[in-house]
């Protein structure tokens, strides 16, 4: 029974993610005074990629890499409570808490890294080293923020963190712990990976970063993961800092706004080099995070 609910919410999240991606692309196109792709373009791309006829593989890990990647993405989804107070849409969140989700993100990265690594394309590896380097520093403000709110609420359970934020706008973490929220939201920019932090897969330069060699079904899986991951990360931040959601509508609205914030920054700013972004993450967001921790203790 649980599995059916999980599948149902997965269906929602997947579709929402695809639509969101389409709409966001359309919005960014409008910013550039274009019309842009149809909102259903992600669906078409996905279908096309899954329908690619010829396929080759560099080896076992190249083959399994995308599976790992998608497992990582779906894994986070599986352990994330979606709707507060709704047992049906809490997925498997009773098996693990916030820490599990934070560390589950690594599985996807590892999958990508292994797959791309066996692909043997040097540019993929360059992309991966960039991605990993950047990710380590993104995690610094993120960790500080998580510690801060865990200390604030004295719990690591996402459901309980959400529960503690119920009862109005003023109870949200963004109001009760603005420093942690600020640090985490800056980290969020890096997690989503739009500009200024998208040198990882800077198109043409290296040519696509990690997925350079991936095609067809593999690429389809990576795309699927990407849309899910973006939504789930938004939902995570929603749960931690913006009071969670008590129904699907609230979830969609909040997740969209959080995601849109990253997109907004991404369309406005140019790109950082990797050492610049490392320094940046270890500077302002980290200071904010440290302040958040100091104030809470």
């Amino acid at each position, binding site marked *: 029974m649980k599995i059916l609910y999980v599948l149902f919410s997965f269906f929602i999240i997947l579709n929402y993610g695809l639509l969101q991606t389409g709409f966001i692309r359309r919005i960014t196109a409008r910013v550039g005074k274009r019309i842009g792709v149809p909102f259903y373009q992600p669906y078409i791309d996905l279908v096309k990629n899954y329908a690619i006829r*010829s396929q080759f593989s560099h080896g076992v890990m190249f083959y399994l890499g995308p599976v790992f990647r998608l497992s990582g993405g779906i894994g986070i989804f599986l352990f994330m409570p979606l709707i507060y107070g709704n047992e049906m849409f809490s997925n498997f969140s009773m098996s693990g808490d916030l820490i599990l989700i934070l560390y589950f993100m690594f599985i996807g990265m590892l999958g990508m890294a292994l797959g791309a690594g066996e692909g043997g394309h040097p540019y993929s590896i360059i992309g991966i080293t960039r991605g990993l380097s950047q990710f380590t520093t993104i995690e610094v403000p993120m960790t500080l923020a998580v510690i801060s709110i865990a200390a604030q609420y004295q719990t690591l359970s996402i459901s309980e963190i959400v529960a503690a934020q119920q009862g109005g706008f003023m109870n949200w973490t963004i109001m009760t712990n603005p420093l942690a929220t600020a640090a985490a939201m800056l980290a969020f920019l890096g997690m989503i990976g739009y500009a200024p932090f998208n040198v990882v897969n800077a198109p043409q330069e290296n040519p*696509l970063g990690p997925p350079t060699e991936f095609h067809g079904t593999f690429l389809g899986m990576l795309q699927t993961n990407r849309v899910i991951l973006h939504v789930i990360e938004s939902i995570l931040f929603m749960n931690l800092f913006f009071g969670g959601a008590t129904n699907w509508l609230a979830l969609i609205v909040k997740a969209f706004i959080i995601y849109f914030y990253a997109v907004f920054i991404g369309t406005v700013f140019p790109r950082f080099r990797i050492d610049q972004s490392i320094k940046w993450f270890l500077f302002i967001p980290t200071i904010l995070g440290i302040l958040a921790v100091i104030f809470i203790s």
Partner: protein
Amino acid sequence: MAEEKNYKIIQPEDTEENKFLKPENYKREVTAPDGETFVVDPINDYFCDAKPQPHAPNTIKIVEKFLNWARSESIWVLGYGTGCGSIEIYPLMTPRFDAYRFGVQQRPTPRQSNLFIISGYLSVKTLKRAIRSYEQMPSPKYVMGLGSCTINGGMYWDSYNTINRLDQYMPVDVYVAGCMPRPEALLAGFMELKKRIKEGKGEGANEYAEKFDWYKANQKKVIKDWNMPDYNW
């Protein structure tokens, strides 16, 4: 740090075949860590020499039609400008022409592209790279010839190092004539391509696989220094 060479290059025999072999592709005698020596032949050992296979369309008509629709609506162009025509491709992505509307997007890697636009004259040297890139694209894949030069050589019809007819070397789905064709013409070409795909005629990849020997013979006729396996995976 001067690195000690742990291999010995074996000079190839002076045959016609080996004439254009590059030094890095010479056979070399290497010593394994356990002291055993053996010969590495880069051409055979480092490249897959399997021939391409035609891929049959989905046997269920309706599914194939749906997939063809999806393919036609999601055309990913390989970002590779071969000649002067490439200057006409970039405006496509600007607000004025906005090819995104039609699901046309650019990809930097052949692995993820469906459409290869040969943008203008194609020198023999570029042809080699173009063929490699084309062969590295996954099936189904399409080729669009841009400008007169790809049709009959255009103003370079008697040039010493450009090809005259593109479809001698790779199956072309659509030609867009002109010198140069305007972006509007390109858009029209996309429409034409979409139509062909939807009709199920965009089977250039299978055609290439079926008539592989013929294409390869044509290619080798102009590309004298062919020093690679026949098909680039």
